């Protein structure tokens, strides 16, 4: 299975459709040189047969072809509608707004004037690839987040608040000389997207432990702590197969290391200091703040002030001192989020100790 996935991620497939042999050959040569995996079709019907295999997501087609035109091909592709998006570039010698409108309403994504310019073709294809990768990224994250939520016994807003806290902390850190090279807009977008996956490994924790009301014994505690490594390894396998998918690497780091402590006394690996990925250090604080300020069965909700004191106590031991400082600089924003997203936590009828009472060295 891993092998077939690797093959899929190797070269980008492009389907080229043109009734003219000469154009077809030139397009094929260009795309092969550009590192694409090229399949050619000589008419719209042949193209649709390839499309139906589900293996083509980038299509470059001539507009004017006998029988089935490029427009008809676009419409047929869009009529399928049920699978992953197919990005269609139409080649045309037609200029003018009317034709563009006609093409767009048939479902074309982009146009390329004939005779094509190789560099322009590559730029258009890269845009298509980017859109397709964002689509698959969002589907992946959405699916995983739903899975994570199914094992998140707090009410749903925990994940909402978590990602907000992570974004606020990242924005604050981005303004500091030490972090401004590592934290940019993309980092902030990605941590917002991936931080809800921090506890994804709980899908691997048995119900008898995860759902057990009341205190857990040492053995049960050890089992629950495995969620970090389970989530980390799972996402690492995915990240290895898709080395370009930076969101998977970030999600892996977060899932694996969000229970590490700055002083090296955390788990699962006992990493310390800056050996712990920055994203995981940020999530660690956000996760703990949310656990403190929300009511759990085993504890009341602490006030912001009390939670803040506990976090300051953990400065340099449990938490990265720079991140604690950033937190103190923007704590008002934390209070705002908490008030805005403070769901009816009393609806929680049971809880686990998986997010352990914090401050305690675990």
């Amino acid at each position, binding site marked *: 299975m891993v092998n077939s996935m690797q093959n899929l991620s190797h070269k980008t497939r492009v389907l080229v459709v043109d009734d003219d*042999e000469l154009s077809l050959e030139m397009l094929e040569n*260009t795309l092969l040189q550009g590192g694409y995996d090229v399949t050619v079709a000589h008419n719209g019907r042949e193209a649709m047969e390839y499309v139906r295999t589900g293996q083509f997501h980038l299509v470059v087609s001539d507009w004017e072809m006998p029988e089935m035109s490029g427009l008809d091909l676009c419409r047929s592709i869009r009529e399928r509608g049920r699978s992953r998006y197919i990005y269609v570039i139409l080649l045309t010698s037609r200029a003018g707004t009317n034709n563009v409108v006609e093409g767009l309403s048939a479902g074309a994504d982009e146009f390329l004037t*004939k005779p094509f310019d190789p560099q322009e073709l590559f730029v258009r294809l890269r845009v298509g690839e980017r859109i397709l990768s964002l689509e698959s990224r969002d589907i992946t994250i959405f699916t995983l987040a739903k899975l994570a939520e199914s094992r998140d016994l707090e009410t749903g807003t925990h994940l909402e608040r978590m990602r907000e806290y992570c974004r606020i902390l990242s924005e604050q850190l981005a303004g500091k000389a030490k972090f401004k090279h590592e934290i940019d807009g993309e980092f902030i977008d990605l941590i917002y997207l991936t931080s809800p996956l921090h506890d994804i490994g709980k899908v691997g924790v048995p119900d008898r432990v995860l759902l057990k009301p009341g205190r857990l014994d040492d053995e049960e505690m050890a089992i629950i702590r495995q969620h970090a490594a389970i989530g980390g390894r799972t996402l690492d396998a995915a990240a290895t197969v898709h080395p370009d998918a930076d969101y998977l690497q970030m999600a892996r780091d977060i899932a694996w290391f969000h229970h590490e402590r700055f002083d090296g006394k955390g788990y699962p690996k006992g990493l310390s200091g800056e050996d712990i990925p920055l994203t995981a250090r940020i999530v660690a604080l956000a996760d703990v703040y949310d656990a403190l300020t929300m009511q759990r069965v085993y504890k009341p909700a602490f006030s912001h002030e009390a939670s803040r004191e506990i976090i300051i106590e953990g400065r340099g031991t449990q938490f990265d001192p720079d991140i604690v400082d950033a937190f103190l600089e923007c704590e008002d924003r934390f209070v705002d989020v908490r008030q805005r997203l403070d769901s009816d936590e009393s609806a929680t009828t049971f809880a686990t100790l998986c997010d352990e009472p914090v401050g305690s060295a675990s």
Partner: protein
Amino acid sequence: MSVEQPLDNPAWPDVRRLVAIDAEGGVRPTGISSRSEAVVEPPIDTEGLLRRCMGNVDFAARVLRRFAGQFGGDVDQLRTSLNDTDAGAVARIAHRLKGTSANVSAVRLQAIAKEIEDLAAVEKLSQVSSRIDELLDAWSQLVASMAPSEGQSAFHQLRPNGK
């Protein structure tokens, strides 16, 4: 007028008509530096052709041969459609010829094909016949401009897949 057929000569087109070695020993498309001095536009914009062939001279030569193979048939079809006074067919064939000429950067052919397409679109078929003659004229010039010059054989033998 008959369509000139260069394909009997396996050395056509001569790749040295596409690229030249400049003073620094670099290879560049022909016809570019000379463009400023040229009174008439060269039949092929070699720079455009080579760009579309990703700089592969042998591939460009193969493309030109394929184009030469199609050209005669396209002209025959144009004439037949003209005889049938089928303006739609004339426009369609001219449109296709315009596209393939553009692909190989045969700029003059492309321009004439466009004129024929435009004439057919407004059903002025009476003016098409003379344009077909112009087309053949431009084609002969193109063929000649790519014809092997003296002493090409040794050069061609040096190329791994010289055709």
